[in-house]
């Protein structure tokens, strides 16, 4: 029998899967509670550098909560308590000495609803740069162009840089948000259902971008669209009820997962709940 019922506790993952791979993000024995309600339970996750890793699982399984641990966005939520270890680019993200602004520069984030600022396209991209003190017009222009190119948006907006960002299509706005994140030269990109508000063609364009970003950035992507995970991710992690149950190469997860639970989820099966 190929898929077996889950053992309680350990994440099922081939032992040498990430051997020799540098890690961008790591969670070890990570617990997360929202006002006493456990949302993450002893999560162990390794996200390799310069690859796309997808987090999949049913609603409420904790994937967004896990994502937000890596840029400490959970700090903003009252009653949220984290224990265990979170490492970002080799450093302890929750160490007292950690600079939050610096963490959030190195770890960019893209949300489900595109959130461009109500400013021009160029000003959106330049926002983080100006905040960091960059004033040189020439250099700003160069960095804006580079970021827009990297986000696959340059050709569409090169003649509209002073137009309001709110006039772009949803797909363009989402790519603008990525350009804004890329402008400050992050190393990791966190994406929380980034394409779920986009039409199918914009989604595919967006996915092309995600795969291309892999060359320079490490991507952790939360998606409820399994085919999207299958299309863009090198590695896929399956979560359920706050636990990370299985982690493997995407090919393996989608052709022959090890756990019955993973198989049931990706094939759309019902199971008798045992608890």
């Amino acid at each position, binding site marked *: *029998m190929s898929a077996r019922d889950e053992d309680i506790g350990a994440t099922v993952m081939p032992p040498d899967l990430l051997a020799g791979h540098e890690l961008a993000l790591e969670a070890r024995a990570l617990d997360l509670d929202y006002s006493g309600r456990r949302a993450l339970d002893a999560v162990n996750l390794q996200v390799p550098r310069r690859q796309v890793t997808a987090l999949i699982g049913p609603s409420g399984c904790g994937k967004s909560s896990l994502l937000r641990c890596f840029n400490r966005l959970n700090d903003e939520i009252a009653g949220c308590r984290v224990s265990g270890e979170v490492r970002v680019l080799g450093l302890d993200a929750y160490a007292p000495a950690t600079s939050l602004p610096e963490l959030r520069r190195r770890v960019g984030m893209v949300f489900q609803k595109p959130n461009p600022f109500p400013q021009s396209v160029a000003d959106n991209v330049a926002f983080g740069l100006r905040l960091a003190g960059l004033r040189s017009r020439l250099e700003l222009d160069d960095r804006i162009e580079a970021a827009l190119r990297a986000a696959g948006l340059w050709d569409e907006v090169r003649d509209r840089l002073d137009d309001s960002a709110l006039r772009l299509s949803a797909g363009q706005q989402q790519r603008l948000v990525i350009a804004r994140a890329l402008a400050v030269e992050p190393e990791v990109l966190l994406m929380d259902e980034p394409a779920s508000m986009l039409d199918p063609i914009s989604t595919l364009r967006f996915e092309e971008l995600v795969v291309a970003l892999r060359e320079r950035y490490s991507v952790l992507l939360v998606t409820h669209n399994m085919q999207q995970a*299958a299309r863009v991710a090198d590695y896929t992690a399956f979560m359920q009820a706050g636990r990370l149950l299985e982690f493997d190469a995407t090919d393996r997860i989608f*052709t*022959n997962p090890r756990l019955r639970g993973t198989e*049931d989820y990706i*094939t759309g099966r019902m199971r008798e709940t045992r608890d």
Partner: protein
Amino acid sequence: MDRLHLGQHISQQFNSELAALTKQVLAMGGLVEAQLATALEALAARDLRQVAHVVAREDEVNAAELEIDARCTQILARRQPAASDLRLVLAVVRMVANLERIGDEAERIARIAEKLGNAELPEHYAFKLAQMGSLVRDQLRGTLDTFARMDETRALERLRRDREVDVLYKELTRLLVDLMQRESERVPAALEMLWGARALERIGDRCKNICEQVIYLVRGKDVRHTGLSRSAAPLPETK
């Protein structure tokens, strides 16, 4: 049939599609089994009416292959199946291609009755061929059974029993070659018998292919070209 929990999709429609697909494959298998049985009877009895029957039903076998392939294409397009569902569809496509070829071989066997006409051969050659025919019929029935039960262990056993078919084939070949060397006027008839044995041996190989697909479908392990049939090792663990 439900070892893979095929019937538990939230989409009832998808459940029905997969159930219908497996039923169709087994129906095609039954048809091909019948073709082989009739062909062997036709040959043994030199019954030209039964030959015509086999030839006429070949169209049904071919039509079944096309229809099942079309259903598989639809499922791939519409459902984007994953994991065991995906393996089922892929396995079905390959199994059905093998079943269609078995149908072709059965027709070939039947037509030998026509070609032999009234030619006489000593009884024990026909007997040996019938023996081989019986063994291959049993292989085919058993193979289809492993699919019906989704039983990869039985599939592996069936796969290995193809050696018995090969043994009979070599024996019969040797006897017929011997005959042809001793009695050159028997050569045309002996050659037809040899083609008959060859067709049966090919059917045996096709059954092996189908068993490999059952193992793939259940275990997720592609055992084609691994020499599994010739070894005594247990099924490898999927890494």
